């Protein structure tokens, strides 16, 4: 057999199969980073005169010790996954979306306004349309900085930070004005929350007595959708191309600015969905603090997941578990949950800092592959 075709065949086989050790290594990195942070946390706990094992056991216990704890980790993972998916898309186009907090708010607003506006609709019609409304509103909030970047070259970090603040004030204004719960006004409590959503707009509870809803299933399904979108469609390919090499893409005729704006818009839409899930599944109304900081922790979760939609699924759950566990730890050993926030920051730094390890690993891998390929040729 002529040498070239055997090399071709090997090359093709290598392209088709997934390099599991590579995936394994990449998955291990965030876990290792977390362990390193936990070690540092243990030192801090000792300084606080708390038994680290008891504290960490509480974290573990918080998630696996009860059905409530476990479902809570999934409940928290859902918005993290959704926001993370958006961050993923944007990041693949080399756009950093810091505006998820504001986009969640807009999504929540859109969902609330729609559901309250069409109270009489049946569930099968109301739920999907409300979700769509939230996606559109969130996308709108991503669209604005996207357009500002595309048309006016306004830096997206700058504009999204501003948009976050504006969204927050907008929500405050609406939730204590036109959207305020009239029952609260009548009772004189004037609570900053909207009217309760009609039951037809509630997401289906999966396990009774818990907050786990079909929103979780939606999020997982969307993760697969985003994966297919990014790797199996032309638009998705272009988004990734723009992120990997904007100059080459431009040369190839791809409108870089357009795809970056598009990625921001989509990111906003997914964050908006996270807002909808919180409103339709968890709280059943719009209230202050609806974002719960998911806009920022979603970034971290995306990082955990290697900025890959499928990696995001376990990553979001892991992250959600940490958050649930931290609360339990605060209850059990009275250590402020701020400790976990601090450790999570360290984890981000470790994971991001260890990228150079994976780069070296990738280089070595490719050298090894090349060696193996050349040996094949010789054989």
């Amino acid at each position, binding site marked *: 057999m002529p040498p070239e075709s055997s090399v071709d065949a090997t090359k093709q086989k290598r392209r088709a199969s997934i390099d599991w050790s590579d995936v394994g290594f990449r998955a291990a990195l965030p876990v290792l980073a977390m362990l390193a942070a936990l070690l540092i946390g243990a030192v801090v706990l000792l300084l606080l005169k708390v038994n680290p094992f008891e504290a960490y056991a509480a974290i573990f216990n918080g998630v696996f010790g009860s059905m409530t704890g476990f479902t809570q980790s999934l409940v928290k993972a859902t918005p993290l996954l959704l926001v993370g998916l958006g961050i993923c898309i944007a990041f693949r186009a080399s756009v950093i979306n810091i505006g998820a907090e504001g986009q969640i708010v807009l999504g929540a607003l859109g969902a609330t306004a729609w559901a309250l506006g069409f109270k009489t609709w049946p569930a099968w019609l109301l739920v999907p349309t409300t979700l769509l409304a939230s996606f559109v509103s969130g996308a709108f909030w991503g669209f604005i900085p996207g357009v500002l970047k595309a048309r006016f070259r306004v830096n997206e970090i700058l504009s999204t930070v501003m948009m976050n603040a504006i969204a927050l004030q907008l929500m405050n204004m609406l939730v204590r004005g036109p959207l305020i719960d009239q029952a609260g006004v009548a009772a004189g409590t004037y609570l900053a929350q909207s009217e309760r959503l009609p039951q037809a707009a509630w997401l289906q509870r999966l396990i009774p*007595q818990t907050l786990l809803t079909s929103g979780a299933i939606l999020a997982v399904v969307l993760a697969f959708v985003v994966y297919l979108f990014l790797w199996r469609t032309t638009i998705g390919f272009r988004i990734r191309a723009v992120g990997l090499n904007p100059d080459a893409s431009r040369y190839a005729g791809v409108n870089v600015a357009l795809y970056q704006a598009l990625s921001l818009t989509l990111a906003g839409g997914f964050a908006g969905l996270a807002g909808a899930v919180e409103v339709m599944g968890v709280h059943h109304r719009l209230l202050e603090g609806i974002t719960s900081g998911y806009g920022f922790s979603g970034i971290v979760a995306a990082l955990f997941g290697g900025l890959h939609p499928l990696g995001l699924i376990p990553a979001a759950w892991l992250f959600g578990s940490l958050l649930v566990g931290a609360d339990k730890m605060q209850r059990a050993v009275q250590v402020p949950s701020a400790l976990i926030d601090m450790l999570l920051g360290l984890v981000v730094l470790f994971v991001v800092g260890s990228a150079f390890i994976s780069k070296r690993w990738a280089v070595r891998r490719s050298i090894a592959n090349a060696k193996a390929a050349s040996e094949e040729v010789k054989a």
Partner: protein
Amino acid sequence: MKMQSKLMVMFSVLIVAVMLLSACAPAATPAAPAAAAKVIRVAVVMPSATTDMAFSQSMYSALLSVQKEMGGETAMEIKYSENMFKVPDAAAALRDYATQGFDVVIAHGSQYGSSVEEIAKDFPKTTFAWGTDVNTFGQPNIYAYTAAAEEGGYVNGVLAAKLSQSKQIGVTGPVEVGDAKTYISGFVQGVASVDPGMKVNKTWTGSFSDVALMTEAAKTHIANGADILTGSSQSVVGSIGAAKDNGKVLWFGTQSDQATLAPTLVVASQVYDWTGMIKEIIASRTTGTLGGKTYILQLKNDGLKIAYNSGYSLPADVKAAGDKAIEDIKSGAVKVTP
């Protein structure tokens, strides 16, 4: 490559080891009931810190003083979760405490309503208390509580109007909702009852926690000529700080006694005193009542108290006017609208 795979093995072993050790470590055991006299176990979930000099602190210090009265930790156990501004976290905490067998579970935050409604159904032997609101959801094991903040606001307003020399009063509000809104509404009415023409200027920072903005708002009021300030929420420490910097501006507080923050400038604070309510809730358990009642803190039932600051020398006639306002509200001669 070899080095890296060794590292991998090392770390994998470490992972497994830590996980096994954590899982094997004694999990936090729920406190067993005392052998002799039965300890009453109370848990409280709060949206801000126990040290916020405002809403959460009012409940926490009330619990502490009831505990002291009852004989300390052997008679009453208190466990708390603070900074639970995320409702699902609070719900998890509430459910957790109920599962651990606490007798009284207090959801100290109006946003916890729907959580309490659902969780209470699963734990019929536990007393749940929830505020600030008036709705007990028709369930026999839920108490609701709120504070008629406008009453103390009125009294503060009367005192402020009498003390102001520049005839300009500043109100630094957080967000125009809840007891912040009702308190300030009462305050304005109190001022008007003494001098309808006196100016009361209001600012709203839009946040319960933005202290810096609250400080700036207070400074702005002062620069505009206000010589008395009041406000609500845990961010008022900023306003009080601005008053202290000026040195002459007086302060009226609410939710907790804020005299310690500015010992010579705080005139009076409306204090939420939940102790009476807590004692009644605990006592009712012995007769089998676990809920179904709404408590409203008022001047009349001693749930609201006006704490005059001894560090500030209040002229006798002004104090008399304040006391008269208190009496009038108690008797119903004066009605304050929230």
